[in-house]
């Protein structure tokens, strides 16, 4: 709506410079890394190459880690999408009962420092004598993803036209029929957005996975962390660049569903809950 937009006096030049320097500081290392992955250096010359990428793809240990990451990501995001969507619908326009407990705990899982989250889960698994492995990683990932799905779907529910539900009820639909034929179809985009978001969160998680994964069942970030302890190499550049591209792909879903706003607003939940979409 550019017509309504009021004029905005320019920020001072210093602020513009700070913006550009900041962007430079944020992006330069990643650019250098991608370049490093594409260059083959010999003592006296260098040339472009895809060799490091093929080395990554042919590394069985890395491919196993990738497989673990994808397996965990898909399982965790499916589970958290189902649980989170169900919770968002349950919270929608209801009062009392379970509501405060579910909402409160969802905030807890959002704002607690990752490290506390990680070690408390480790303690739980230890006491219940769960064997650490991909299952415990999935459980951990679901635990921190549910809230994000709840936020994404909840944001859609909050802006949904109430009269649609009322109309369904007036026409004699049961509660379940209303959900199934009216509410859920309208929620599909936000459910997909929430799912993509939780996959991204799961795929990117390092710290919590590091605490609760089993021996020899590393995900990609954990593998990268271990390899990085030994130093940098063109192969690691290639691996990191590939992961960067995968993140980028997940981002496409993510930006489309405007879930990324929810991501930040969820963390700043105490700030404001009724956020209006900006064009």
């Amino acid at each position, binding site marked *: 709506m550019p017509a309504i*937009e*009021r*004029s*905005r*006096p*320019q*920020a001072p030049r210093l*602020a513009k410079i*700070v*913006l550009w320097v*900041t*962007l430079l500081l*944020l*992006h330069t*290392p*990643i650019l*250098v*890394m991608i370049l490093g992955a594409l260059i083959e250096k010999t003592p006296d010359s260098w040339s472009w190459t895809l060799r490091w990428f093929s080395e990554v793809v042919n590394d069985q240990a890395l491919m196993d880690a990738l497989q673990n990451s994808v397996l965990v990501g898909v399982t965790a995001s499916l589970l958290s999408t189902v*649980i989170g969507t*169900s919770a968002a*619908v*349950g919270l929608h326009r*209801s009062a009392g009962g379970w509501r405060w*407990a*579910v909402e409160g*705990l*969802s905030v*807890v899982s959002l*704002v607690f*420092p*990752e*490290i*506390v989250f990680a*070690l*408390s889960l480790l*303690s*739980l698994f*230890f006491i219940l004598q769960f064997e650490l492995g991909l299952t415990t990683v999935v459980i951990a990932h679901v635990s921190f993803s*549910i809230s994000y799905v*709840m936020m994404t779907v909840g944001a859609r529910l909050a802006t949904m036209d109430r009269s649609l539900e009322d109309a369904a009820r007036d026409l004699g639909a049961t*509660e*379940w029929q209303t959900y199934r034929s009216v509410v859920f179809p309208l929620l599909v985009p936000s459910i997909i957005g929430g799912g993509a978001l939780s996959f991204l969160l799961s795929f*990117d998680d*390092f710290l919590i996975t590091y*605490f609760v994964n089993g021996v020899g069942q590393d995900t990609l*970030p954990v593998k*990268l*962390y271990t390899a990085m302890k030994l130093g*940098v190499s063109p192969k690691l*550049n290639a691996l*990191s660049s590939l*992961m*960067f591209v995968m993140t980028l792909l997940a981002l496409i879903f*993510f*930006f489309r569903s405007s879930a990324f706003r929810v991501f*930040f*607003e969820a*963390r700043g939940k*105490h*700030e404001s809950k009724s956020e209006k979409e900006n064009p």
Partner: protein
Amino acid sequence: MKLRDLFLLPAGLWFVVFVLLPLIIVGIVSFATRGTYGGIEWSWTIANYVRAFSPTYLGIFAESFRLALITTGICLVLGVMVSWSMATSSTRLRQLYLMAIVLPFLTNLVIRIYAIRLFVGADGPLQAGLTLLGIPFDAFALTQNKWLVLYGMVTTYLPFMVLPLYGAFEKFDFSLVEAAQDLGADVWKILFTVILPNLKKALWAGSLLVFIPSLGEYVIPDLLGGAKNMLYGNLITEQFLKARDWPFGAALSVLMMVLLLVLALVFRMWEARRARD
């Protein structure tokens, strides 16, 4: 039970078992004793808390607190400048800037840190550039130091500051700025007397969003700080993964949670008071 409550059941159960219960367990474990070979012995003590308040650990805590404060401060200054110039750009540029700020943030933390290490490492552009310019440097000192930790922290948490601030700037009524200009205020006076007072809420929210994870950070100091920089998050992690002194680690994390809870409560009360005024 209504259908709606049934929908809440899975999430409720999941949260109780995998969020609430673990926190309770940590609380309980913090009063237990470390077994001779690690692990937990169920004899009750407050020794872990006494130990947590010894000068060594208080020192580590103070250092982490300082780093978190400095990180928050830098993010605050950068965040205001960045979001201010973002919000006053053209609509098209605004979207681009937003993506440019969010993209590195959504990139895996380990990858970003790897990229930083590559940048400052032995064959990296920074050392090559310094050599080219003939500036003497200590190759190892460049790869691991507290400045790198700070750089890692600021670049990691900056988006948490920028996004709330940017959101507030978007809703800010810029005609106030025009009015101030007409009345002859210079740009800094406008910033401090017109803009910032109107962004208070976002400033606080952003600061908390940066401060809370900064305080417990483990990965960044671990990979960019070298062995010299023991911070609270590393201390807790070591207790769990290396020293195998879970009760002490649990006590340390309970203390961190209590501190953060107090901070959140203070913020809440301040907000409530402000709402009443």
